[in-house]
């Protein structure tokens, strides 16, 4: 009986092994570089104490703050946040439609035109919404409206991209049929393109709304309205039980909104 069967695994070809070693070395080099910049032992002596007071505050939230008869309380802050997200989403869902058609390959006769449109959208996307909010605060003053405008403009980037992808996947049959029967460009758009993309448009707008709720809750950190303003005050004054209740409020609101918009999206698609 032949007992010396080769039990070792087959070796990969040399060239492939070399490539693997180079990639491995590259990854190691990147991580060495990354960790070399991290200051070690910079943890403050008070860290433990602060951590204790934070956990204490987060688990004993300031329930009185939920509703105050006069002015700034949690419910009003959350309502503002919700309003910023709703209006911001509406503005971007309306403004992004022309951009979406501009960036769709099947809606432009010249491919480069769509390419420029796609680039414009990714350019808008790279602007952080907080930077936009800073710009709009200069224009309309601090407050919720600046937040609305920042979200409205920033969301065009992502919504426009998603919308243009929806437009690119439509069935061109109805369009051709309408062109063949002599419809104008506008009629083709209205009767052949729009009916096909409406469900996708609504679903993407709801998805963006879920993201905008999260963004709107932090815009206040730089003064653009919503629950973020009392949050940053509470953080700066180390008022941890108030931070706790605001955090709880944000989490509950986000979970409720996600559930509602998820249910609507399921019915649409």
């Amino acid at each position, binding site marked *: 009986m032949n007992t010396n069967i080769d039990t070792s695994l087959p070796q990969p070809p040399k060239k492939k092994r070399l490539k693997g070693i180079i990639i491995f070395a590259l990854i190691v080099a990147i991580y060495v570089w990354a960790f070399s910049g991290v200051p070690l032992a910079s943890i403050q002596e008070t860290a433990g104490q602060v951590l204790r007071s934070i956990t204490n505050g987060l688990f004993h939230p300031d329930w009185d703050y939920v509703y105050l008869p006069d002015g700034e309380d949690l419910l009003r802050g959350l309502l503002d946040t919700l309003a910023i997200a709703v209006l911001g989403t509406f503005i971007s869902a309306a403004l992004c439609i022309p951009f979406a058609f501009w960036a769709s390959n099947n809606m432009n006769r010249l491919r480069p035109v769509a390419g420029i449109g796609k680039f414009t959208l990714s350019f808008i996307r790279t602007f952080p919404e907080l930077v936009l909010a800073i710009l709009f605060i200069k224009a309309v003053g601090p407050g919720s409206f600046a937040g609305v405008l920042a979200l409205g403009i920033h969301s065009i980037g992502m919504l426009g991209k998603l919308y243009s992808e929806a437009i690119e996947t439509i069935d061109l049959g109805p369009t051709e049929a309408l062109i063949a029967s002599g419809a104008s460009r506008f009629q083709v758009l209205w009767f052949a393109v729009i009916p096909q993309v409406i469900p996708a448009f609504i679903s993407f707008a709801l998805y963006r709304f879920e993201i905008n709720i999260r963004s709107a809750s932090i815009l206040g950190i*730089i003064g653009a309205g919503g629950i973020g303003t009392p949050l940053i005050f509470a953080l700066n004054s180390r008022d941890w039980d108030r931070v706790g209740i605001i955090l709880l409020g944000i989490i509950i609101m986000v979970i409720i909104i996600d559930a509602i918009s998820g249910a609507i999206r399921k019915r649409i698609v």
Partner: protein
Amino acid sequence: MMTDSNRHIKRTKTGLTILILVLLCWGSAVRTDASLSSLMTGIPQMGDLLIEMVPPDWTFFSHIFDATLDTIRMALIGATLGAILAFPLALFSSSNLFPQFIVAPARFILNILRTIPDLLLASIFVAIFGLGIIPGILALAIFSMGIVAKLTYESIEAIDAGPLEAMTAVGANKTQWITFGVIPQIAAPFAAYFLYSFEINVRAAVVLGLVGAGGIGDWYNRTLNLLQYDKTSSIILLTLVVVILIDYVTTKVREQLL
């Protein structure tokens, strides 16, 4: 064929939906003091600001280069820690691997973590660890853990059950089952999600400095407070270039992976 009353009901439904949307919009506009006139009077001021931002202060690039590298470090280490933490969480959240009494709490924790905004996490960590990039790294780690874990458990639930059944048939235990049946199937998408979270982290890291968590965002604050808008615009330009570059590289690597 649609009957008349059906069509009537459908029309009423559409009408009601539009009415609700208009009411929502109007209510939000009132609540946020939105007004076209203030926007119209504000736009010239914004124009002034934009004029002050041009041309950018080119000499400022050498000042902020280190901070930009810090931002990339934060994003990379944060994404790595996040991916390491995300892996067990994703396994526990997969309903085809674990029974419901493990999956439900794991998903609950995951959902809670995903609702906390990254800037808020960063502010809390700044309070604990002081200013610098460590709070930024920790905030990004938790933030990207949520993203990677969610995407990963969705792909685990979509894996091919064939190898798993074969392994059960030959009597593999749970660890062997996961090591040889699950991991080979999700390694490539997991790496892709890691890169995706790195991409998102770079964008998030840019603004974390606003609350004192290190990196380039710190300079946003300083230059804006000193009204040096030409320097602000050079920061914006540099971050744009970095973000586009990193997006390009990660997209290329992702295409290789999948």
